[in-house]
């Protein structure tokens, strides 16, 4: 320490990854496997706990087939990388920066949260927390304000996932003196130099993200995974609604199931439809009407536990969606 020269950033050992070089105290797998050893990949998979996360993803998130497929692929890659490292076949950490494109309410933030957990479980990230930011958190208001602000956010995200919502707002083509450019340059630098410490996920509407990447080619080339979140079908929306209700300990009566389906079919064709978010809002309003209906009944007949849980068609039919057409 006394030579007084700057030293390179020390490569941090990845906790939970026995193959990481220079791990603390006792490395779990100190010597390399011989060339003729075989490895049971199924057992490796179980011990890494990947299946639990993939299953939970399948269970909790309706639809999103292409996204789930890509997540399984990434999990497989990380798993194989771990096994390869035990034979001494190191390929360097893969670049896992991603862009999530899709309409509002298609589950981008939720998947980002799951992704952070998965990458943590696979030993790629040390902490696996998610830092959600928008332009406001990165870009300053006057000269010299942006860099410290962006750095602070990046420092907070180290060891986890930095999720930049509506990333295209960072770049404002119409104003060449916009401070967003400075934030983009810092992001690029970190995405390149701290690949082991940080995964950056950019999210937003597909068309605007395309324009953003077109005007920032450096950004596009540093993002390995472009995931597109498709809109949900009617069946998927109904399934999402039922999942949300069961989480909130509500249920639909038999008639209400059909009404709810009709409601969603109409709502889908209306403007400002935001997929799962619209479903959640609809259910929140149905809860309001449900509570109001029970109180308006004046306590006769007395409410049972089932009454408190059951949503009826009337709770949905009062909606503007039905009256306006």
């Amino acid at each position, binding site marked *: 320490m006394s030579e*007084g020269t700057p*030293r390179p950033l020390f490569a941090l050992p990845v906790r939970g990854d026995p193959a990481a070089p220079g791990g603390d105290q006792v490395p779990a797998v100190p010597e390399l496997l011989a060339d003729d050893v075989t490895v049971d990949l199924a057992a490796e998979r179980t011990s890494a706990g990947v299946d639990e996360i993939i299953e939970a993803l399948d269970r909790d998130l309706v639809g999103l087939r292409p996204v789930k497929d890509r997540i399984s692929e990434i999990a497989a890659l990380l798993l194989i990388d771990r096994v390869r490292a035990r034979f001494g076949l190191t390929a360097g950490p893969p670049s896992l920066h991603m862009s999530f494109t899709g309409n509002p309410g298609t589950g981008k933030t939720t998947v980002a949260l799951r992704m952070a957990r998965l990458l943590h479980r696979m030993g790629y990230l040390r902490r696996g927390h998610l830092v959600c930011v928008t332009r406001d958190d990165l870009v300053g208001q006057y000269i010299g304000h942006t860099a410290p602000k962006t750095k602070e956010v990046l420092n907070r995200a180290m060891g986890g996932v930095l999720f930049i919502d509506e990333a295209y707002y960072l770049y404002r083509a119409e104003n060449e003196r916009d401070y967003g450019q400075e934030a983009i340059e810092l992001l690029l630098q970190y995405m390149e130099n701290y690949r082991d410490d940080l995964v950056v996920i950019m999210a937003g509407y597909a068309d605007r993200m395309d324009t953003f990447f077109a005007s920032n080619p450096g950004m596009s080339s540093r993002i390995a995974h472009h995931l597109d979140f498709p809109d949900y079908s009617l069946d998927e929306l109904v399934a999402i609604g039922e999942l949300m209700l069961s989480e909130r300990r509500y249920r639909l009566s038999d008639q209400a199931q059909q009404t709810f389906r009709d409601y969603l079919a109409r709502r889908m064709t209306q403007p400002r439809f935001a997929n799962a978010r619209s479903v959640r809002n609809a259910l929140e309003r149905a809860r309001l009407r449900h509570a109001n209906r029970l109180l308006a009944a004046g306590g006769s007949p007395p409410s049972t536990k089932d009454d408190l849980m059951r949503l009826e068609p009337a709770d949905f039919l009062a909606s503007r969606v039905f009256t306006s057409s």
Partner: protein
Amino acid sequence: MRITQGTFSYLPDFTDEEITSQLDYALGQGWALSVEFTDDPHPRNNYWDMWALPMFALADPAGALREINECRAIYPDRYIRVNAYDSRRGRQTVALSFLVNRPAHEPGFRLDRQEAAGRSIRYTTHSYALDRPAGDRYAPK
């Protein structure tokens, strides 16, 4: 003369890995980290310069280590220390503070005696480094 200030000052200088472990511990305690530097090694010098802003809400020591290394790159011949601030009510003080960088050559201190009234003597320590102007105190020979 190797100066000893802060926690761990009688141990050999930490490697980056050991620093990371300490930062990790501090973050685990919920302490906020900050980096400071100075070229005035007097033990009573409380006014160290701040390097960037204190880092609140860090989850991982990598970010703090990056700040330390940036500070080292720019001020390789100054004293750099890391402070961990405990913001809990009733504590609100620095809980851990240790040096992470020191100049290659530390000239040390001399004892000055001042003769005061009535043949009494006042003692003070004077850093040889302070004989040179600020910013130029540990210039390589």
